[in-house]
């Protein structure tokens, strides 16, 4: 048996174990160990590499970004920054067609610039936007779907955990990934807005329970007005934070890790200033930060061990040769790859998909002459669609759990996110066809 066949068998074993429900980190470690041992016939080497990965695999300044950006996201979430952003967006956009839907997307876009976790956005806006939309005659399921759909912006608009993880796995600059995510993120936001307006004109019954109430709200000129000063007061913290983090990153003033540290510290000051950290809240936030980031970091250690095994087996090169020999065009490969990721997205969570796919796929993409930042944006877009597809659509479940309304079923929310999935697929195709959307600002 050639090492190549062994390599493929090991990948199959990994996929089998993961599907069966083995913790993904265990599966990656075990398969990696087995692989190095069998291929090299040397158990000592397997041990030595395991020690090396456990001790040094993620001992890099770069990996500190993960807990820091998670901490920042959680801090802005507890300090009501999301609510304020939505209130201002609502005030500014209420006269627009499908105004509250558009306001949700707009607020999510801005909020995405200070948090890297879709789940955080989904939880925040379920509490803030859904009740408000329902009150104004929108269908609750549509409102929930809008929140779930637009929360995926958090993963594309920097800072984003998925972009960081991709950058680490594909060995691309994380700052570069953040820049590459900007235009596709804006495209996605604009696409969502256009879709919401279109749907509310063409299929009002999909959007509203009571179109009249929504129309009345839209045409109401006498409603309570928010003064410009109040609006500014509500927006200043988030604007400062976005300016600090993204400005610092794009000007090259901060490394991603420093941006994370400063961003988390800025968020801490906002939270303290708003007095949202009383009665043990601070400790809860800190604990939650660990609870979210440690499983991701464990996965990264395990994945780096597994990719060492893959390179020992010579797999990335062999697969790249296979793909070249089979005459796949770059576009054909991207298409095939996106479909695989979309399928995986139905059963696996986003980090795990990246960990399993990127070490194999990135060398192929590079061999085919695809820019790795461009490839990363396609990967993250495809993975994000997975956040919305059943049965593992985490965002949808988060919204459903947070909403806790017996009248809105998970299935209804999944149905309401379908138009969003449509927009995401369209943006995916656009980005795949036009690499310039990702690489223009680099």
């Amino acid at each position, binding site marked *: 048996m050639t090492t190549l066949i062994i390599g493929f068998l090991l990948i199959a074993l990994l996929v089998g174990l*993961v599907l*069966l*429900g083995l*913790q*993904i*980190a265990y599966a990656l470690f075990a398969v990696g*160990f087995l692989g190095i041992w069998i291929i090299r016939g040397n158990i000592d080497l397997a*041990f*030595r590499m*395991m020690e090396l990965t*456990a*001790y*040094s695999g993620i*001992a890099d*300044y*770069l*990996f*500190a970004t993960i*807990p*820091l950006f998670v*901490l920042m996201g*959680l801090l802005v979430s*507890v*300090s*009501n*920054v*999301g*609510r304020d952003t939505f209130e201002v967006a609502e005030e500014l956009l209420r006269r627009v067609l499908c105004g509250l839907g558009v306001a949700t997307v707009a607020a999510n876009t801005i909020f995405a610039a200070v948090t890297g976790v879709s789940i*955080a956005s989904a*939880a*925040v806006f379920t*509490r*803030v936007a859904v009740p408000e939309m329902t009150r104004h005659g929108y269908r609750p399921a549509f409102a929930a779907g809008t929140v779930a759909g637009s929360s995926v912006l958090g993963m594309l608009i920097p800072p984003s955990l998925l972009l960081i993880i991709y950058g680490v796995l594909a060995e691309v600059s994380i700052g570069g990934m953040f820049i590459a995510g900007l235009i596709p993120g804006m495209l996605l936001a604009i696409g969502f807005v256009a879709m919401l307006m279109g749907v509310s004109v063409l299929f009002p019954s999909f959007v509203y329970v009571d179109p009249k109430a929504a129309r009345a709200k839209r045409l109401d000129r006498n409603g309570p007005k928010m003064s410009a000063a109040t609006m500014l007061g509500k927006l200043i913290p988030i604007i400062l934070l976005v300016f600090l983090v993204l400005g610092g990153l794009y000007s090259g003033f*901060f490394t991603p*890790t*420093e941006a994370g*540290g400063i961003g*988390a*510290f800025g968020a801490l000051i906002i939270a303290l200033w708003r007095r*949202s950290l009383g009665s043990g*809240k601070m400790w*809860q*936030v*800190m*604990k*939650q930060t*660990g*609870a979210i*980031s*440690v*499983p991701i*970091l*464990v996965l990264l*250690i395990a994945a780096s061990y597994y990719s060492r095994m893959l390179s020992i087996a010579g797999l990335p090169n062999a697969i790249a040769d296979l793909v070249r020999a089979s005459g796949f065009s770059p576009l054909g490969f991207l298409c095939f790859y996106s479909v695989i990721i979309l399928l995986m997205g139905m*059963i*696996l969570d986003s*980090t*795990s998909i990246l960990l399993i796919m990127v070490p194999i796929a990135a060398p192929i993409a590079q061999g085919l002459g695809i820019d790795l930042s461009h490839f990363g944006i396609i990967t993250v877009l495809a993975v994000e669609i997975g956040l919305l597809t059943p*049965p*593992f659509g985490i965002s949808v479940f988060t919204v459903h759990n947070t909403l806790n309304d017996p009248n809105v079923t998970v299935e209804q929310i999944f149905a309401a996110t379908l138009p969003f999935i449509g927009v995401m697929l369209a943006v995916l195709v656009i980005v795949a066809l036009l690499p310039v959307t990702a690489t223009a600002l680099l």
Partner: protein
Amino acid sequence: MADDIEITADTGAVPPFATAPVGAVLGSVANLLSAIGTVWIGVMMGMIVLDVIGRNFFNAPITGVAEIAGRSVVAVVFLQIAAAVMQGRLTRADFLIRRIQRASPAGARLLDTLFALMGALVFALILWASWPNMMNAWTTAEFFGVQGVFTIPTFPFRAITVIGCVAALLACLYRASMTWRTRTEAAS
């Protein structure tokens, strides 16, 4: 005003000592390690902020922040891994096992027990691989950093890896036995 988001971190409730002595001790140890890791994340943030401020405003960077932060990430992971195992927070795809659970609860519990043992095996492997280097680091006073600028002994960091693995290994075994026991109880 209501909060935007409910931050309800798993408190990692520890069973009372009287009914489950092993679980109580193990749970407390895991929570203690995890709490150290939690504080460490905050310290790391503070260190990075001070470094940025010091460098840009007072022309006084803190030497070695990048290296220390890198090592800290690993330390935090191994400090919190036992708690993650105890509370079943490690990422997994549960769509199939939930179906198995419905069809045959006993089968699902058997699988879960095997998975926990698999975890124990993985941590045992890491432990086995890391032990000699920890002892070496102690006897040779190994350090990282730049000699003459700043040096930090690696022993504490290597020791954290080992301690974390031991705790995680025990946590896996504990979970395996707990899962297995509920199985037999359900069967009887």
